[in-house]
């Protein structure tokens, strides 16, 4: 007698996709496409070259020539915001790929093997979970020096445990399914069972989680740059742009507002899309 299994763990993603009739999630998807296009095509689409200085035009308010205004060095803010999108997306993709890669590998092994192997891996996971992401990142940045790479490594180090946990619990429930037992009875070796049955079926919730996490990663990356341990001049990065102009907020609102809005909209887009995906899959497995 097997216990009740969680809802729809091994439902392939493509079968849940058509169920997303949710308009909000659709809005998120459209926004993400637009933001990605703007970021990828920034060198060609942006109205000005990325680093063109124009001290005469320093801190001019939004106008027909400069829709978002200019910063204190006279750089066009719309251009900088578009280029900032590149930085944010690169960070998000690299961080999530790194942490999901490590986390899912460890998690699937832990979940399938069970016993002491699972215990050891899960305790290590707990340690990294207890570490505040922001602070570990800061510590690493102090050590490695502030840069985009530091941000990626630092966030990934604190982020993989989530995927390990998720993959472990999914894999553990898949390990009790009849098709895994059947494969064992056919003499299929354990590594092959993991690759053939456990991993593919454990992937759907992970993919959903990744789309949910993208927003969070972008927020943390911006916060790190805001703290001065992330991207450095002259890289265009939204958090960095906010911190550079924050003292001028009262007089030059646009210099802080537009980069901030860019972060907000991007994080929002990823969050609603991820939530829509999860809703289609399982309304309950929620975490921060």
């Amino acid at each position, binding site marked *: 007698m097997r216990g009740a299994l969680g809802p729809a763990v091994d439902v392939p993603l493509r079968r849940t996709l058509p169920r997303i009739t949710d308009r*909000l999630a659709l809005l998120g998807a459209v926004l993400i496409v637009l933001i990605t296009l703007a970021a990828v095509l920034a060198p060609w689409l942006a109205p000005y070259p990325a680093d063109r200085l124009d001290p005469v035009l320093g801190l001019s308010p939004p106008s027909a020539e400069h829709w978002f205004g200019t910063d204190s060095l006279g750089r066009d803010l719309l251009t900088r915001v578009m280029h900032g999108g590149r930085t944010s997306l690169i960070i998000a993709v690299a961080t999530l790929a790194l942490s999901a890669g490590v986390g899912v590998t460890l998690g699937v092994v832990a979940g399938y093997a069970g016993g002491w192997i699972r215990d050891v891996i899960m*305790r*290590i996971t*707990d*340690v*990294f*979970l*207890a*570490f*505040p*992401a*922001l*602070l*570990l990142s*800061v*510590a*690493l940045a*102090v*050590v490695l020096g502030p840069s985009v790479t530091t941000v990626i490594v630092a966030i990934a180090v604190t982020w993989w445990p989530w995927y390990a946990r998720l993959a472990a619990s999914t894999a553990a429930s898949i390990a009790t399914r009849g098709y895994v037992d059947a494969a064992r009875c056919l003499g299929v070796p354990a590594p092959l069972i993991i690759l053939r049955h456990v991993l593919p079926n454990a992937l759907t919730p992970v993919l959903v989680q990744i789309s949910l996490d993208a*927003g969070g990663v972008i*927020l943390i990356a*911006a*916060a790190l740059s*805001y*703290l*001065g*341990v992330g991207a450095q001049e002259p890289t265009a990065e939204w*958090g960095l742009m*906010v*911190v550079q102009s*924050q003292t001028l*907020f*009262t007089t030059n*609102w646009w210099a*802080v*507002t537009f*980069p*901030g809005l860019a*972060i*907000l*909209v991007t*994080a*929002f887009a990823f*969050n*609603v899309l991820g*939530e829509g995906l999860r*809703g289609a899959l399982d*309304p*309950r497995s*929620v*975490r*921060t």
Partner: protein
Amino acid sequence: MPRYLTRRLGQAFLVVAGVVALTFVIMRVVPGDPAVAFAGPKATPEQLAAARERFGLDDPLPVQLWNYVRDLVTGDWGTSLRTRQPVLDDLFQAFPASLELVGAALLLAIVVGVPVGVLAARYKAKFPDLGVRVTSMLVVSVPVFWLALTLQTVFAGHLDWFPVAGEYDRVLDTTSPLTLWTNITIVDALITGNWPIFTSTLEHLVLPTLVVAAYPMGVIAQMTRAALIEEAGQDHTRLERALGFTETSILTRFSLRPALGPVLSLIALVFAYAIVNGFLVEAVFNWPGLGRYAVQSISHADTPAIAGVTLLVAVMYVVANLVVDVLQGVVDPRARAR
């Protein structure tokens, strides 16, 4: 239950031990030579040697780790490079203010988030639900430091409704000095009946609390909504309908309690998140808490101080999880059986 609790305590202890080891690795092993960091880049060889001697850097690593653990346990968390004070003293000074801010924020987040989640679940797919979903998604997606700057500029700067920064008006320290009991200003002001400081702190709290509460409020509302909708799909909801209960009564009297389980485990996570988010907010509002201390330490590359804050926050996370696990049993009888 007691056996389960002992096991959880054991696990928590292991995690704390792991955190200490990890901190040690990051602080002592990765940076290369901490002696340079302490004595400064222009230090003479003699000064360097003295620093080495002082930190025991010539000992083998396991001995250093052992010494590190021994120092931590005996209350020696190192000396801040910036304030030149024991880190533990600095932490004790800053911690209560952070607790004040985060406590207020979480209270607000729960008091608003749970009812709002219930509202959304009751009118699922109708207008209130859509409103709650969009709003909660927005507050979860907003960068805290930017929200802090914006609220500060608009409500404190332009409109002048609230004070710009600080914990309370420092002038009051001379006109009505505060007697310290718990070191948490608002609590001390309340129990000693120091109304000028109490109201001043309250005024100063509003904006930073709103900013720190934004994220937790959003996730708690989302989680409450999701958990309630999940409960509504369970068989028992159908039985309760068949017994003649109204939808609202089913939601609040039968579904809310089992739904609070997942919300509770979320609160432990959100607590840790709020503390760290609080760091950015404290820096903006010049709140005299851990966050301001951490941010200042970061800009001075004050490694012992950063390590201290990291360790403290990690321990708090572990403790918060333990507390939530115990509460879980109170809320959900099924959890007690485990």
